[in-house]
């Protein structure tokens, strides 16, 4: 850590580049979003135990439309998103293996965290009528399981939390839940309750090559 701490953020690191050709950003994903002017779909892999565990994405792209981190590390989240064309963020569900963004409590003082967050039926009585009419806000996930600072999203951008497939198979969860910055808290809660399917056909996943 001491060795790493003295390194500048923009060092070339372990990439195969000449010392005279430093990376503009140290973070690979941020670097690629910056370097690829036509990139519309970015899907990060690596599994829950991947090296991006707890990492922060700081993406700037005019072309990026879809970010999928459902197969990336747990607790991978966003520092900021400057992607005006963004229309979809796919992340893991609200479990402790979650990543991406989480719905922020409508006001301070409400129960926070995964699994039994403010949206859980146990805590619904704490919500006022005003809370229910507020639009959803999105916060970065934190290691503590509580939501971090808010992340601004384009109005059309849907955040989709996908239920872990093993939980789905075990009957512990149903389908994906989604919300946009214009979704009201009341609508979001009804989707949580019904496990409403998101329009997968409207936003196709990464294409499978025909066998």
């Amino acid at each position, binding site marked *: *850590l001491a060795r*790493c*701490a003295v*390194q500048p*953020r923009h060092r070339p*690191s*372990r*990439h*195969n*580049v000449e010392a005279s*050709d430093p*990376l503009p950003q*140290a*973070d*690979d*994903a941020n*670097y*690629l979003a910056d*370097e*690829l*002017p*036509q*990139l*519309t*779909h*970015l*899907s*990060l*892999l*690596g599994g829950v135990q*991947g*090296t*991006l565990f*707890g*990492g*922060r994405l700081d993406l700037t792209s005019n072309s990026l439309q879809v970010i*999928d981190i459902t197969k990336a590390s747990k607790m991978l989240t966003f520092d900021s998103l400057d992607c005006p064309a963004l229309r979809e963020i796919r992340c893991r569900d609200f479990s402790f293996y979650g990543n991406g963004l989480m719905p922020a409590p409508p006001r301070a003082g409400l129960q926070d965290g995964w699994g039994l967050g403010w949206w859980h039926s146990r805590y619904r009585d704490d919500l006022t009528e005003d809370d229910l009419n507020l639009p959803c806000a999105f916060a970065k996930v934190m290691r503590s399981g509580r939501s971090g600072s808010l992340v601004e999203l384009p109005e059309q951008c849907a955040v989709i939390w996908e239920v872990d497939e093993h939980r789905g198979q075990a009957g512990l969860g149903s389908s994906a839940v989604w919300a946009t910055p214009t979704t009201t808290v009341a609508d979001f809660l009804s989707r949580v309750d019904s496990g409403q399917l998101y329009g997968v056909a409207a936003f196709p996943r*990464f*294409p499978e*090559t*025909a*066998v």
Partner: protein
Amino acid sequence: MAVVLERGRGQKRHLDGKRAHVTRGLAGGWTVVSLEDGGSVKWRTGHWQEEGAEPPAAKKTASEPAAALILSLADDQLRDIARQLDTPSVCSYLCASQRFAALEAGSCFGECHLRDGLPSGYGVAKCKQLAFARFLAAKHAKLHSLHVDMGRGDVTVLRLLLQECDTRELTTAQIRVEGARYGQMTRCSGVVIDWSTVHLDQSNPADTLLAEVGSEVKVDTKATITGVLAQFCPALRTLSLIYQGGDAEDVPSLGAIKSLHRLEVNLGEVCRPTSPQTLTPQC
């Protein structure tokens, strides 16, 4: 039932033509046969000729009238048909037509799928994948899509493919790199691998084979997967690059593929600010 064995693969290839008796069936399409010169061996059910049965050519003609029809077509017509098929269908089609003369131009292959985990009968058989890759390279085949499953050491094959094939219109690539040293195309190519020394990274006959492939790779061809993709694939729009044993190794080359629209990849490096003043990159 007395049979004459045929279509043996790998280490059982030397048993082709030997007489045997079918003893008992096993699960999964296998049968135990007793060899006439002693011993027994597991053999693929049906990969034999019954003694006294009609000659194979006559039998095939009778049971596969479609194949006979295909054989009556001219080479140009065969090529036109093959151009419309995906790779597994092309392989089935070739099995039926048995007309490799039509492939001389090598132009009918727009796809290269060298995959693992497909059921028997689909895709290019593992034992033929390396030869197929070299065939495509030798013919400078014009590729539109590529799907390759390989081991760490098989990158040479991909380098040769991309170097030699016409990849100006290659738009889709899906590449999966196993953590293992050799992928299925090397493991099943007929070389004997000393598995006791593989983990020691000592030289194996498989390395000799790969070195032979590597001798055809030019010096200025990039060494990494992303490097060679950036070098030879100017129209690549969709890339899925799955590293099962790690993360993408040459991200700057990936950033050089400016035509990319869709990208699926393992990325490793991330820098985490733990306090406003201190950065602790986990690299």
